[in-house]
């Protein structure tokens, strides 16, 4: 063996040893074994959060929208936040490096159960949450954050995924999702859609209303045949997409510069654009909508649990709920916020309207178990992810 070859062999061998070391180190299955605390101690001075756009504002986007600075002043917990564009990114961030990099997350229903199943989030002692009983009854113990009677977080905000359109261009005013899903839409080329596999459910909602023969009952419980039908709607639509959006700010830019004239959005984008004087409107189309209900969850390995408990308490107060609702135009989980928002605003948001609440198909993780008599006939999220890659092409 020539010398360089010998050196190379040593290098590769040591690299292999290292890799073998990697094989041996089994992942530690984080289980929230520790029982929840019985009182909130002194703040640890810091709080690291994962959140949706618009949930953790310190007055930088809008000087009036600031519920972080007073929190920091009152509790001494310095808040840092990382905004993630999708539920999948949130789950990945909470699991990063075995968990513990962040204290809490504003998880939607399609992320929360994954985090609970993965042992990434801790059981919360709701006795320590002031005003827990004020939460909208439907959101006190919903299946997306309460498993076996254990609460894994505190509900925060909920809302619908709306159809946003440019009122100068899209005429007559649309009433149906067909403006984005119909392959003959006059606005093809100037459409946008949310860049996540969960968007398949929006197509399923549209099909549920327009193609009853598919017998879609729940947009997250799709058999392979129903999923294929949704993919068949989304694939031709991809050609008419100017760009998929991830972070809310991306979509705001797309609408603001005219690249896009119609597409699915969160109410937040509509409000942000209207604040800048852009001619946009957000509507709930006649086929109904998908939506989300978000929960503040605490990491099972949180480094600053006291600050997280203080944060969950803080964000549930009617004052903060009202501030957030006014900033993002979502529904507050605590209807007491209405006394501050005013009844007119709350009626516009349908905060206490059970019919409106029931009309939204809230995000949840698709599983192979359909959850009804069809049994394990449904497609799980890994299949959705695969299909989403195909749709984008």
């Amino acid at each position, binding site marked *: 063996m020539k010398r360089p070859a010998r*050196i190379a062999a*040593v*290098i*590769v061998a*040591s*690299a*292999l040893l*290292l*890799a073998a070391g*990697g*094989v041996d180190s*089994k*992942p530690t*299955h984080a289980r929230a074994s520790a029982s929840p605390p019985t009182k909130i101690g002194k703040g640890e001075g810091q709080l690291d959060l994962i959140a949706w756009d618009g949930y953790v504002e310190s007055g930088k986007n809008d000087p009036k929208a600031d519920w972080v600075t007073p929190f920091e002043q009152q509790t001494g917990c310095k808040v840092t936040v990382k905004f993630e564009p*999708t539920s*999948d*990114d949130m*789950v*990945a961030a909470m*699991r990063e490096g075995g968990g513990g990099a962040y204290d809490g997350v504003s998880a939607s229903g399609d992320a929360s159960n*994954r985090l609970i*199943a*993965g*042992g990434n989030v801790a059981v919360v002692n709701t006795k320590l949450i002031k005003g827990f009983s004020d939460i909208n009854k439907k959101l006190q113990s919903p299946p997306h954050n309460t498993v076996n009677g254990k609460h894994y977080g505190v509900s925060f905000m909920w809302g619908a995924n709306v159809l946003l359109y440019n009122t100068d261009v899209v005429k007559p005013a649309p009433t149906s999702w067909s403006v984005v899903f119909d392959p003959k839409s006059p606005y093809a080329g100037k459409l946008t859609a949310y860049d*996540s596999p969960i968007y398949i459910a929006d197509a399923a909602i549209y099909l549920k209303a327009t193609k009853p023969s598919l017998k879609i009952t729940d947009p997250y419980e799709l058999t392979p045949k129903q999923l294929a039908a949704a993919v068949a709607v989304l694939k031709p639509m991809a050609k008419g*997409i*100017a*760009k*998929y959006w991830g972070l809310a700010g991306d979509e705001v830019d797309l609408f603001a*510069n*005219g*690249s896009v004239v119609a597409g699915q959005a969160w109410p937040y984008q509509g409000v942000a654009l209207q604040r800048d004087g852009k001619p946009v409107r957000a509507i709930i189309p006649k086929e109904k909508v998908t939506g989300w209900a978000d929960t503040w969850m605490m990491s099972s390995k949180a480094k600053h649990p006291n600050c997280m408990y203080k944060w969950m308490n803080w964000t549930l107060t009617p004052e903060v709920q009202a501030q957030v609702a006014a900033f993002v135009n979502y529904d507050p989980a605590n209807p007491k916020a209405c006394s501050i928002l005013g009844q007119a605003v709350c009626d516009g948001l349908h905060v206490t309207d059970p019919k409106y609440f029931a009309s939204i198909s809230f995000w949840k993780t698709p599983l192979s178990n359909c959850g009804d008599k069809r049994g394990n006939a449904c497609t*799980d999220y*890994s299949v959705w*992810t*695969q299909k989403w*890659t*195909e749709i*984008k*092409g």
Partner: protein
Amino acid sequence: MHRLLGVDAEVDRDQGLTKRTEPRTPTRRLQLSAALHGRPRLKLALLLVPPIVWIGVIYLGSLTLLFASAFWRVDELSGTIVHDWGLQNFRTIWENEIYHTVAFRTIKFAAAVTVIDIMLAFPLAYYVARIARPKSRPVILLLIVMPLWSSYLVRAFAWRTILSHNGVLDWATSKLGLGAIGIGYSDTAVLIVFCYLWLPFVILPIYTALERIPSSLLEASQDLGAKNATTFRRVVLPLAKPGIVAGSIFSFALTLGDYIAPSLVGKTQFIGNIVKDNVGAANNAPFAAAYALIPVAIMAVYLTVARRMGAFEEL
């Protein structure tokens, strides 16, 4: 005297017959230098430890881990990596058309960017190396390298603003009466940005190769009756070839691995986007690793061929 020689006073007086009372305590540095004296292999080993750790552990080690994890899988519910060895990731890649489409698209783009960049870089490099006055050469080279000193992200975002709907480009062309071009978020936009981003990396090796050609060779060629075109084809081009190949390694490899430019200025997926989505959103690092082996394999072949063509002499 003893002070001058640095010897003990006693030793000096007895003409060196007494033993030195206290031996001079050698400093650490002297000890080290003494230990290394006459041991060239040890010296070499010490010098090589940091680079070997760097290359062996950090670079090759992570490559090996990448290769190994491509055979693992992710537990669906908990999202943790399960160390069961299997070919499932490769089967997914093999069986799903989309992964072929994306891989071929990426390779196609890498090839196109390389060809375009060489066509743009060669005349410029030739001008700087052989035509420009020696005084202005450093200035032009500085201008070529300058973009590399600003952030990649800033440049990519700048292009997004230029190419997007109602952006700078559309504004300029409509002012010229050509109407808006509207290539925002298209494949063309991605191609333009890639070509721009990697151009300096292609110019520099070609420039180095061209600059090294002795003028005497060109004169000899002319003396022997070769026309300019013949001299170019039979003297300049063969001698510049290693530089061209070296430059092409940069443009090809960088395009193959990039995912930021496509996600900023385009909307279609490249190998890097699939890898990124699987590491982040889909939380499937093993699949990402398996898919990332495709560009690694392509580059291995590319580099072998490039080495044969003498590209590594120009790096």
